[in-house]
């Protein structure tokens, strides 16, 4: 699947993960710090994902 990681300004191709939790593990992202979006839908950790999906990962942490 194509994964756009907004805060790192990069796009990666990830194959072979079945859930959002597995995807975040693969990308070494803390689930507390991001939202996972597919189209207009937010996905919880157990949501199923497929190789043909286009996923956006949005940061939630701000401030300085």
């Amino acid at each position, binding site marked *: 699947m194509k994964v756009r990681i907004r805060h790192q300004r990069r796009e990666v191709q990830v194959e072979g993960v079945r859930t959002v939790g597995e995807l975040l593990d693969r990308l070494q992202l803390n689930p507390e*710090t991001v939202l996972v979006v597919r189209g*207009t839908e937010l996905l*919880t950790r157990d949501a199923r994902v497929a190789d043909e999906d286009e996923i956006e990962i949005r940061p*939630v942490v701000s401030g300085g």
Partner: protein
Amino acid sequence: MRCAKCKGTAQVEVRRHHTAFCGPHFLEWFEAQVDRAVRRERMFAPQDRVLVAVSGGKDSLVLWDVLLRLGYRASGLHLNLGIGAYSQESQEKCEAFARDRGAELLVVDIPAEYGVGVEGLAQLAGRVACSACGLSKRYLFNRVALDRGFSVVATAHNLDDEAAVLLGNLIAGNVEALVRQAPVLESTHPGLVKKVKPLYRIAERETAAYAVLRGIDYVLDECPNSAGARSLLLKEALNVLERDAPGTKQNLYWNFLEKIRPLLRETSQSPALRSCAHCGQPTTGDVCAFCRMTERVAHKLRLRAAASSRAPEPVAVGALPETPAGGGDGGLWPSGGDSWGRPANPDTDRG
């Protein structure tokens, strides 16, 4: 994962409450949480005029959106900080938000008012950028609210912000700032407007989810000056704890408010406030920190203009002798500050 209300597919998990919601029920839950905070802490009433400090980021636009939906009389105040394209985009997001909802937006353009943006103020006044920015915000939010007849200023500090500031102040042992850390700061001077934080019960991840589900268009980029900020390091540490022990941030902050802060308040005294000799705003000294900063900057700008009119080479601002104008800028764990961004020493730095 299923929605706790309707058993439909959940879109947002709220792990600290062991629950999850579909989109519509999450929005309903979120707005109820904010309304509960406003009522429980007696932040303001429906007839009050509320000035919402809006940066163009997710938290402040979400706060403004929720208050309008709940029927409160909420206007926005945006400060254009003069930080290049970042500030331009931030103002555009606020203007578009207000236009779409028919809401009132007030804008203060700092470069237009003071000759330079917050980075220039910082450089000319011998401060770091975040210090000059925080001082300007505290001063201008209060002054605009007073001048325009607002009864309260609402800022979008959320649970993560509060927990991070609390952790920082605990590490620094900053008792004075700990006493001031609360979701409501009542007015203690005729020139000081009440300040409230209606999102103090809401995690940052939840405000981001609300923004996405409501289709709120916010600035995703961070302020370019925030890279490496201490608050981000503290948030990162707390999020590691939260991942493995959900509820850590909430327990840290709420236990502090309920059990520790009351004890600290018993032994502390509020500093006496008087009116600034130059602008009339509350201060602990003769002249407030904001007037001292802007007058120093104006003086240096005049020197620079005079020098450039006399000689072909302009004065190099960075080469002028600088004296740090307040505490809190010195290191990773400086003297601390409160979650309104105020530094630890009100005698030298209170706006």
